[in-house]
């Protein structure tokens, strides 16, 4: 009897085996396709970003033999930086290459190829070393963005004249500079050392990076201790009743609230009520810490939950008090998980722009912030501002800023993964 049953089962299984295998293959193919689609989109995203942005890391420089003439800089015998005409020094050095350009309108066209950057560079040089007056110094200074775009072939020189920002004459001038080895492409240090600027060749992300840095400093200083303390209390000390359930539901809810809501809250509470200045990293940091608090609490609670009860029980068994159990045993074991949550929270805060829109961070700020209440912008907001600029050269700089932001996010997430792998414990 039993033998017959076994036969029957075997037959049944064999009959359905083909269908089961087919189903499994189908599922595998579907899963593979889904992954491929994801990878392809990611590849397209990175490809367009890098293809557009890599050229922003280099910049065309032009060589100027600047004559620090006494008559321009120190007409009355003493150096007068306030009223000295640095533009004139830069322009006359630039005109050395073009002795044949004399007409007024031609000179104007020519000056458009020279950035306003050299004037500042000359000013800085003379400020640092007043002895330069009366000498001639060879300097490499950034060329105007349109020259840069032409050299990088972002402007097509074969288009009809009316459709490109440079005239035929200007292109001929640029070609002459190239012939005379007066143009060179070099690493774009301005991108990392300058604050924002409306001249693409002078614009940099340092101001935004410092702004983001100060904001994250406040966020970590506030959100981590508060989040960790809340998690420890909720897991280890709080009574389990309806109230703690309510709090738990609310914290989970807060983690899913759209970030713009935190911006509105920040505007109402920190700016309108507490009168903290707009655009300050302090406000940004406070808003971002509200945003990351639930993330940190949830991750920390999960880390504390993962500590096996046997460890607590052993400690209690040896006569440790509750506080001793928590601080000597639970927290040290849960700390890697808690820090991991903090890093993930930080990388979310770094990438956020929506809550900052409301609190005045979307602003043109040239000076690099040097404190918590200096006006500052943040990296994602800088990307938004550049993406909206009419000048062509900002398109590649937008992509470059995105690459830098992604680099930082990658580093932070990598740090979280490494930490998890190194200190992860199997119980």
């Amino acid at each position, binding site marked *: 009897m039993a033998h017959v049953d076994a036969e029957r089962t075997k037959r049944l299984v064999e009959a359905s085996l083909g269908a089961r295998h087919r189903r499994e293959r189908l599922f595998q193919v579907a899963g593979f396709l889904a992954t491929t689609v994801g990878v392809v989109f990611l590849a397209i995203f990175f490809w367009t970003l890098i293809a557009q942005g890599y050229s922003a890391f280099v910049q065309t420089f032009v060589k100027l033999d600047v004559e620090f003439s006494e008559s321009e800089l120190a007409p009355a015998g003493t150096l007068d930086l306030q009223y000295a005409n640095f533009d004139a020094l830069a322009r006359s050095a630039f005109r050395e290459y073009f002795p044949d350009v004399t007409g007024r309108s031609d000179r104007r066209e020519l000056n*458009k190829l020279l950035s306003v950057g050299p004037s500042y560079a000359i000013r800085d040089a003379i400020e640092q070393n007043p002895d330069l007056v009366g000498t001639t110094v060879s300097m490499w200074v950034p060329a105007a963005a349109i020259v840069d775009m032409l050299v990088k072939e972002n402007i097509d020189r074969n288009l009809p004249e009316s459709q490109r920002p440079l005239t035929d004459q200007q292109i001929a001038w640029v070609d002459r500079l190239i012939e005379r080895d007066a143009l060179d492409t070099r690493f774009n240090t301005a991108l990392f050392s300058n604050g924002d600027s409306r001249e693409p060749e002078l614009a940099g992300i340092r101001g935004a990076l410092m702004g983001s840095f100060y904001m994250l400093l406040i966020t970590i*200083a506030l959100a981590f201790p508060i989040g960790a303390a809340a998690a420890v209390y909720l897991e280890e000390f709080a009574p389990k009743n309806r109230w703690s359930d309510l709090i738990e539901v609310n914290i989970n809810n807060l983690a899913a609230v759209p970030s713009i809501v935190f911006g509105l809250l920040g505007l109402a509470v920190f700016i309108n009520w507490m009168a903290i200045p707009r655009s300050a990293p302090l406000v940004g940091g406070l808003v971002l810490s509200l945003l990351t608090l639930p993330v940190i609490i949830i991750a920390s609670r999960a880390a504390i939950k993962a500590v096996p009860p046997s460890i607590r029980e052993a400690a209690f068994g040896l006569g440790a008090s509750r506080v001793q159990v928590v601080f000597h045993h639970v927290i040290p074991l849960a700390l890697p998980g808690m820090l991991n949550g903090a890093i993930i929270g930080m990388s979310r805060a770094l990438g956020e722009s929506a809550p900052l829109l409301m609190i005045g961070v*979307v602003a043109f700020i040239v000076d690099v912030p040097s404190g918590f209440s200096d006006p500052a912008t943040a990296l994602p907001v800088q990307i938004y501002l550049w993406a909206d600029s*009419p000048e062509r050269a900002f398109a590649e700089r937008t992509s470059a800023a995105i690459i830098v932001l992604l680099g930082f996010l990658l580093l932070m997430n990598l740090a979280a993964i490494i930490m998890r792998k190194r200190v992860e414990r199997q119980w």
Partner: protein
Amino acid sequence: MSKKSMSAVWLASIVGGLVTAGDVHAQAGRDYVYIVGSSTVYPFSTVVAERFGRGSDFRTPKVEATGSGGGLKLFCDGIGVDYPDIANSSRAIKASEVANCAANGVDEIIEVKIGYDGIVIANATGAEPIALTRKDIFLALAKHVPGPRDGDLIENPHRTWRDVNPALPNQQIEVLGPPPTSGTRDAFVELAMEGGCQAIDWIKALKSSDGERYKELCHTIREDGAFIEAGENDNLIVQKLEANPAAFGIFGFSFLDQNGEKVQGATVDGSEPTFEAIADGDYPISRPLYFYVKKAHVDVIPGLRGFLREFTSERAWGEEGYLSERGLIPMPDEERSAVAAAVMSLTPLRMARE
């Protein structure tokens, strides 16, 4: 290790708290000019701010892009270092805003007209250039258009440009434009759409008899998909036009100026959107741009007077100034010198009582 790191974090937070408290105190005297307002004026205001900041011993002004209405609201909130010194606006200040300002103690405002901005209707280069009239624009984009008899209104039935005007190409109407929150949209509706309205006699007559209905008729843009709200980012519109040669886009002149090889402007009422045509007033869709200054802040906020001088100098807003390179259309000579004189003598705005 854990104890140490925990206490280090606590220490950091306490130190951070102290530092910030000290900083807030230092904020009491603001040493930079604070500007808010229109995103259309932003590109011009920021250039002047940067030049001023780099060329002087003062700090570079902070320019926040909040939109004209939002900027004037912040501006009117009060006098003092917490409130902006200047509000940029792509339209003249409204009487209600002046009243709001006055209610908060901001009673002396200096109006500075800085020049003009053209609004262009453009498509991708390579696509067929188009010549429109304001009437065509109205008939193509209005929600309701006149029916066969005077006084009749029907839902806009026009699918292609040829439906609007037999001289235009047989091409689907597809226009990308800014959302209603934008100052560019306000100006477009007022200048282009309403201008087109005026070409239809019975609607023009409505203006005096039934102003409400006239405004609703002339100012309402169709919502059936022919007009697509493309967001405030004009670069995005330029990109979309490049990808779709059949579409037209509405944006500020400075973007046409900077992207001449990607997009071409349509002629409106026979006038091409060029720098000269807008400056001469031939091109019909252009609007003045302004900024407003609090008189009480001049000589209190360091650099404010210097910023005003820089903005109203010939090298900035003149015929060949650096703002004209950015696409701002300068005012005629006499108007410029009149405005500059009013600014230097700090003559406050007088609002005609409504």
